[in-house]
């Protein structure tokens, strides 16, 4: 039993934290969010230089062979600073899928760019009208001479407009398959938008996109377990990010309670407010415990069902805590909590969206129960 980060994990988190304090304050973040791409290439290169893009890549592919626990402290730091660069999508989904589903040849071609950050990946898997389902259905790929033809559409693809390549899940005759598609390929149309919490997503259409045989990642029809594993892995990382954002929200609320005066006293002297912040602090502790569980189970579980059940349990707790903590943060900040000018309103939006990404509490409660 050991709940401390290793020296390496802590050092990475510390240097990332220090970096973000200097390069990612509220104003700097705002400038990035308002920029054309919504992603700072400088920050991205620095994140890669710190090793964040290499940690979870298998050693055989040139990475550090780490897991979710190795990224957890760093993801917390990203959550605290509300980082909008698509690290989670690149590392947790794109890189993860290449590592687990790709052939040796594909990994040797793709991984160097994943590791140094020059080949940004985004995973297109959600389909319109199908909420959080991970199995491809309406996006299809048909074999044709020398390759495949891809048709269909994906929605809310995080980081698509910032990626060099998309990993696209598609229904093929044998089941689920994954394809590597250039975002600039003929027949690929991106309709990008800004999310409510400052990130970039896109709806993506595929109209008779001609793909070579080498665009198929790994073996046709065998992708579903890889997809589910990657989404669980990314969900565990998102839980860690949430823990960082929750800590930041609670810290900000506590500081506000200690400085804001009304009726001639600091409002933190009111018991009704004390008990509410205490509940938020307890919720954050419980959320951290479950984020640790999720990370350790995606790194090391006896079975996919055990992994999925732990991740779902964690996501229920994270989603509930994210809602409670963000709502209370705004309430206890009073009108100031609603203001665009205060970070807390941005943390509120981020936590609200985290609660829903990869499945909200109801979705995961159902999955948890179905596996029990």
């Amino acid at each position: 039993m050991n709940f401390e980060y290793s020296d390496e994990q802590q050092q990475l988190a510390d240097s990332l934290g220090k970096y973000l304090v200097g390069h990612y304050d509220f104003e700097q973040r705002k400038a990035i969010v308002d920029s054309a791409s919504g992603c700072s290439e400088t920050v991205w290169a620095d994140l890669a230089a710190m090793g964040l893009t290499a940690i979870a890549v298998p050693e055989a592919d040139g990475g550090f062979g780490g897991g979710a626990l190795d990224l957890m402290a760093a993801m917390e730091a990203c959550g605290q600073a509300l980082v909008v660069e698509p690290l989670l999508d690149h590392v947790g989904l794109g890189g993860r899928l290449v590592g687990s589903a790709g052939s040796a040849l594909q990994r040797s071609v793709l991984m160097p760019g994943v590791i140094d950050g020059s080949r940004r990946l985004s995973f297109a898997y959600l389909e319109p009208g199908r909420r959080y389902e991970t199995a491809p259905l309406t996006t299809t790929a048909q074999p044709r001479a020398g390759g495949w033809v891809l048709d269909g559409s994906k929605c809310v693809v995080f980081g698509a407009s910032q990626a060099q390549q998309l990993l696209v899940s598609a229904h093929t005759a044998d089941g689920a398959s994954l394809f590597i598609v250039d975002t600039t390929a003929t027949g690929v149309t991106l309709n990008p938008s800004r999310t409510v919490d400052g990130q970039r997503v896109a709806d993506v259409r595929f109209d008779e996109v001609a793909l070579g045989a080498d665009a198929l990642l790994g073996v046709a029809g065998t992708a579903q377990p890889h997809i589910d594993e990657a989404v669980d892995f990314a969900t565990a990382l998102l839980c860690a990010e949430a823990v960082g954002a929750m800590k930041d929200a609670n810290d900000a609320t506590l500081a506000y309670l200690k400085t804001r005066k009304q009726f001639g006293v600091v409002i933190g002297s009111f018991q009704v407010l004390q008990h509410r912040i205490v509940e938020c602090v307890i919720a954050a502790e419980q959320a951290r415990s479950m984020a640790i569980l999720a990370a350790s189970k995606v790194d090391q579980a006896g079975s996919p069902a055990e992994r999925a059940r732990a991740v779902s349990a964690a996501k229920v707790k994270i989603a509930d805590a994210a809602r409670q903590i963000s709502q209370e943060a705004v309430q206890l900040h009073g009108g100031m909590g609603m203001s665009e000018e205060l970070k807390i309103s941005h943390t509120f939006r981020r936590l609200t969206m985290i609660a829903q990404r990869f499945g909200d509490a109801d979705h995961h409660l159902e999955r948890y129960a179905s596996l029990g």
Partner: protein
Amino acid sequence: MDLSYSSEELAFRTEVRDWLMANLPADIRDKVVSYRHLSKDDYLRWHKILAAKGWAVPHWPQEWGGTGWNITQRYIYDEEFGIAGAPMLPPFGPAMCASVLLRFGTPEQKARFLPRIRDGDDFWVQGYSEPGAGSDLAALKTRAERVSTSSGDHYVVNGQKIWTTLGHYGDWIFCLVRTDSSAEKRQEGISFLLMDMTTPGITVRPLILMDGGHEVNEVFFDDVKVPAENLVFEENKGWTVAKYLLGHERMGSGSVGASKRELAALRALAARELKNGRPLLDDPRFRDRLSRTEIELQALEITSMRFLDKMRRSGQPPGADVSMLKIRGTEVQQAITELMMQAVGPMAQPFKAVDAGQIDHVTSRLAPRYFNFRKASIYAGSNEIQRNIIAKMSLGL
């Protein structure tokens, strides 16, 4: 970061589990798992069995009979008790009075009381709360006046304690009493006094709770003569003793183990209960509530382990962390009792046979159990007091 126990810890867990399986009397276990109250004899019998094994007071220093286990082993031990349906020994003697004596007692007091507590010779109870002093403990009014005579000093105690858990089983009671009513601060005139409950002038009156059970009592003190040698620590410094005890509450995991067992029982119950011909366990509404409680318990367990790990590293007492676990632990316990009661539907209604007939099915005890467990968020520092402690100690409010 590693959530798993070491192989030594797992071996220890197996040792405790196997021993409990072999030595926990079936009738006592049956009472625990079917939510019946234990008699004094049940507690003493179990205490003697544990004492014979040398496991009655694991957390004590070894020179007084402790096992020398580390805090992880103690945590595992507590958890296995909960899982097995083994009653934890009432904390008043082994955990509370003994901790005070070990820290503040004179050599004579230690030698006189500790071996008897360890061996289960004396049943101890706690005299803290009074009708006018609940959460505001320092408001207590029970008086102890010191009287000097040629044959030695003694105190004369007058007043009343309330909510005295298992007071009707008590051989001895430790009390906070007021020895100086003129002290400027209320906390400064309080002393920590040990009393033999057979002393003339002590009367125990049952307080029957809404589950119909006799667990707590009122204790009246009417010119009770207590030898001055039964004062622990200095006169008027009892608040220091009380605060020490509060700060050294153990991070028990008995409730985690017991809640695991009860959730398993609830699952089994909900699998048998039928709703529209289908197991209640498959009903999405029931299932969601059960799942949420399971997840809450899982979070509680990992949080307990994290705090334990922190304690092990720092060597510091757990402080406000215990308050957090108390709040969530009791909430989970209460949620389970409520789900249990609701799981059996209309069968939760019958309570007691009116005539000669017998109702002895566990369903008749589920509603009373739910009633009884409203106590959990009230006792040992209400959950509101725990929130005050967290606000003050860890948030600096």
